[in-house]
């Protein structure tokens, strides 16, 4: 096939240059600034940090301060918050996968018209207000909420179950909010699965469950990775769900970062928290990117 060649280089440079500069300025550069702030001292000023570069006795001085990072290591609160965030994100991802995989599988196996409707039904919640969907659970699971009222009325329980303000509420919230992001890539993967492979396996005498484990599951690895990363990565840094559904004790790093920034106005510590979070997420993020570029190449 003939490659498109561009006669005028100007249009080409402009097409790549405009989004490139925008992203360099508003996406890449901000990370360097976060890194810089994380190495500075907190100050009671506006903005609340000290400059790294200063002139003392006509000499340029650059002072790097690793104190913020040492503080994170030293204070068991931060370490616990990181571990708890990773734990909650991991088990929520697992929950989404266990619920989402059969859903995507059933969707991919249904008839053409049903598929479009089901796809819309899965996509619609992911486009509807995130905040509102988390809020919907507040009325359901609180001590005087509908679920407790219903169970009390049935006589199953004597006193209300404590769900609200616990980690269980956070799990429910994350699985609920991120389920579509798990189902969609899994569906996109499973729907492309060549049915003749499954038929061949069946013809050769493979039982359906065995075929699933040895043919379907390995072939959908890409979808599992993409879906899991789309749930896991944002879940680690989640703020809204632990803030609204979790209790004061449910430590999650996104919430701590928010508090350090908005309540304590300790910008350097907030920046250090962000850098460490990014460092923890670098492997999942690159995994996601590798999968995505591979699937894009496969398409074209």
């Amino acid at each position: 096939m003939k490659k498109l060649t561009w006669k005028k280089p100007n249009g080409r440079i402009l097409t790549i240059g405009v989004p490139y500069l925008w992203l360099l300025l508003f996406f890449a550069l901000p990370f360097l600034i976060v890194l810089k702030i994380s190495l500075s001292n907190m100050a009671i000023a506006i903005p609340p940090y000290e400059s790294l570069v200063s002139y003392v006795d006509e000499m340029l001085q650059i002072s790097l301060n690793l104190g913020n990072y040492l503080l994170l290591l030293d204070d068991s609160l931060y370490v616990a918050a990181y571990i708890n965030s990773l734990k909650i994100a991991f088990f929520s991802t697992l929950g989404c996968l266990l619920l989402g995989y059969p859903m995507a599988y059933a969707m991919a196996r249904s008839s053409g018209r049903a598929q479009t409707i089901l796809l819309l039904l899965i996509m619609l919640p992911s486009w509807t207000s995130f905040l509102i969907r988390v809020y919907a659970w507040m009325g359901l699971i609180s001590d005087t909420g509908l679920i407790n009222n219903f169970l009390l009325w049935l006589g199953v329980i004597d006193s209300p179950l404590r769900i609200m303000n616990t980690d269980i509420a956070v799990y429910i919230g994350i699985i609920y909010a991120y389920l579509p992001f798990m189902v969609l890539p899994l569906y996109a993967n499973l729907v492309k699965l060549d049915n003749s492979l499954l038929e061949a396996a069946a013809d050769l005498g493979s039982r359906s469950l065995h075929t699933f484990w040895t043919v379907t599951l390995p072939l959908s690895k890409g979808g599992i990775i993409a879906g899991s990363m789309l749930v896991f990565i944002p879940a680690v840094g989640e703020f809204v769900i632990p803030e609204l559904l979790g209790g004061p004790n449910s430590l999650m790093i996104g919430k701590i970062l928010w508090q350090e920034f908005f309540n304590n106005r300790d910008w350097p510590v907030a920046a250090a928290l962000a850098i460490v979070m990014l460092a923890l997420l670098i492997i999942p993020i690159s995994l996601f990117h590798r999968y995505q570029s591979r699937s894009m190449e496969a398409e074209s």
Partner: protein
Amino acid sequence: MKKPSFSTVMLWIGLLFLYVPMLILVIYSFNASKLVTVWGGWSFKWYGELLQNKQILGSVWTSLVIAFYSATMSVVLGTMAAFVMTRFRHSWSKMTLSNMITAPLVMPEVITGLSLLLLFVHMADFIGWPMERGMTTVWIAHSTFCAAYVAVVVSSRLREMDRSVEEAAMDLGATPLQSFFLITIPVIAPSLIAGWLLAFSLSLDDLVIASFTSGPGSTTLPMVVFSSVRLGVSPEINALATLIILAVSLVAFIAWYLARRSDRKQKATIEG
């Protein structure tokens, strides 16, 4: 009747799980009782009270304006990036661009928000702009993260598009710019509209990034909702939530319908 398979049962459970909480929220927005968990008969009274709430109405307007401009800018950026990703030869700059544009898809929002805010503070220090954070800074932040979604939607369309039409136009002497505006844009128009609507609803919905990058005069609707929701469930918010669910679902449905119709049209032209 055939016994439904395990996966079909799970699909129905999953769909109920997704929709029942929202359905209950919508039903309870018509609850006459002040107590949110006690049913007191049907009533529209909370919708009436909502229309009296000046703070909420003001923030709705702010949010709509920001979402309009963010969606427009992100379509421009996202389409350019998608064009580079699908039509340009492999190069280092193409690779870094496609990595940067899709990065916000999987970036925790608190990190994106914090980093942009620190950038704005630094810019104010060095070039004296923006002196005050407000709608412009939120617009920049939203355009950047919405462009990621637009790029994904538009690039998948560009990849499916028949390139021979573009090539034919250029063989007949059209400049690349002419072929882009006269051939490519009309063909991918539905996906541009779908991308715009998606970006619009994402911007309308964002809380975390807006909280970091907004200033005193630019409180968006999710920020108002959040500060009220933090205090607990209220019937007025139930009414507002119902309206938001309705509006966003409608926009999303139109976006989906447009994208689907364009797919069908193309398939029909190829087959017919």
